[in-house]
């Protein structure tokens, strides 16, 4: 891929990620991860203090799938809609078809009564890779500035 095409497909991947979450299509969202993919939500203050504990940590795709199954079948959480806003991306070529991607995100939540508020702001530190003809996440790291999570965190950031 030339660099413009690369930027374009990475931007598309992040847009797809956001869109599928906002449309509550968790099972399709799962399809954006490679088998070895990790998904982590970690408070910025832990990163700053070099402390390893996360808010969510999935070390492989099976665990990400277990989260989505649990959200569907077991967990009870605030009834709401999400809107993800993802900033322009910064990309680094790591080689072997792997790219490091950084972007800022904001997620607004809207209650079923129709009031909206900013739920979370932070940064994505991702790694993506070409698998066959598809670009997939091998790492999704969400660094949460809003580390004092309002109410609870159920639907993925």
């Amino acid at each position: 891929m030339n660099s413009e095409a690369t930027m374009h497909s990475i931007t598309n991947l992040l847009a797809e990620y956001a869109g599928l979450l906002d449309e509550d299509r968790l099972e399709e969202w799962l399809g954006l991860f490679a088998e070895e993919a990790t998904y982590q939500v970690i408070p910025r203050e832990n990163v700053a203090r070099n402390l390893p504990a996360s808010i969510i940590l999935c070390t492989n795709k099976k665990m990400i799938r277990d989260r989505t199954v649990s959200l569907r079948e077991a967990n009870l959480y605030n009834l709401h809609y999400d809107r993800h806003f993802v900033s322009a991306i910064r990309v680094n070529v790591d080689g072997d078809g792997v790219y490091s991607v950084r972007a800022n995100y904001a997620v607004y939540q809207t209650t079923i009564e129709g009031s909206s508020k900013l739920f979370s702001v932070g940064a994505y530190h991702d790694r993506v890779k070409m698998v066959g003809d598809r670009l997939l996440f091998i790492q999704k790291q969400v660094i949460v500035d809003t580390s004092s999570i309002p109410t609870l965190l159920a639907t993925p950031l």
Partner: protein
Amino acid sequence: MSEQSGLIPNHPGMPGVRWPRNDYSRVPYQLYHDPDVYRLEQERIFKGPTWSYVGLEVEIPNPGDFITTFIGETPIILSRGEDNSVYAVVNRCGHRGSIVRRENYGNAKEHICIYHRWCFALDGKLMGVPFERGLKGKGGMDKDFDKSEHGLRKLRVESFSGVLFATFSDATESLADYLGPVFQGHFTRLFAKPVRVLGYQRQRIYGNWKFYMENQRDTYHGSLLHEFQAVFGLSRVTQEGGNKMDVHHRHNLTWARSKTDDDKEFAELYKENKVHEEQLKLEDPEIIKNKREFEDGITLAICGIFPNATVHQISNSLAVRQLRMTGPGEFELYWTLFGYVDDSEEMTNHRLLQANMVGPAGLISMEDGEAIELAHKATGSDQDAYSVIEMGGHGAIPDFIDHRVNDTPCRGFWAYYSQLMGCEPEGAVR
């Protein structure tokens, strides 16, 4: 029931509370919403004869190390002095009342307020006031200004097994007595080895703090509200377990042992009670595996220490949850996740994985935030109405319970709360 030190009954500022019963099995919603009650709680509970959790010794290992923390809504600086002793002082400048220490943590020789640079020693003493003598004989503080009267308010601090508590009151009994034998025993078990902080989680809940205190003492909600446990076959009410309380019933330990019940019996019981029938399997069950590390085989221990802390062991996830308040309808839970210094890398990774089960996104805890907000939202409009606390029966509160189908420790919480607040019902049954 022994006489409590520092207890002032029937505090005059306390609004009248209409208890429908005298055994705390009915709690008027007023107590969660009345702003006067909230103000009085800060005085009589958080600044009263209680020990509040403020941090772990390991968070301030070296002289000059400090963290900022809270007791109720009061900001606190916790510092380690040159002589290794620990100081807790109110984080409010003796000059005009500003927050002195703004950072969450650090290392310093003194605490200096940015506003007019008043300088305080780690133990709170006011050391320096810039321009105290004015300039060239003009201005400055009056000659009779006594620096010794304007330091940061110093609290009593005590440590038990490396866990730090502070109290505003001279009347509070020793920390060991405050904990009592059951909770001394539990702390000794959990903090037998040096601990290592793995990280922090925070959760901001828009509800009254006492809904959370009840939640922590409500033994039976776990297997109903936190369906993850039942759906994936973890903790369930059919397991061996129960509660232990101190003589005042202010603290509670909810405990259970996994694998002490029968899968079939469990499934049938839940079916009968119309809970849910489906059992699912995790594709990667690693996160629910318990690596046995305590000789007693206990896999769940939720230990609520009155008034502001819960220490949990959920399988191999260990944490202290501290309550930090910002008003009658809002508080933050501050979770300090820890392991042991001598944990293998594998054990550390396992604890980090099991952090998935706890905290604001915890697979078996996220629901609590929602449950508390639901209760808070609906109860404000009818403060004479009341909640029902009767699972496990009513009447006198026992110190020990040998089953998990109860919320009796909630009544224990209210019994002690009411003594401190001076709002006991007539002929109170504790």
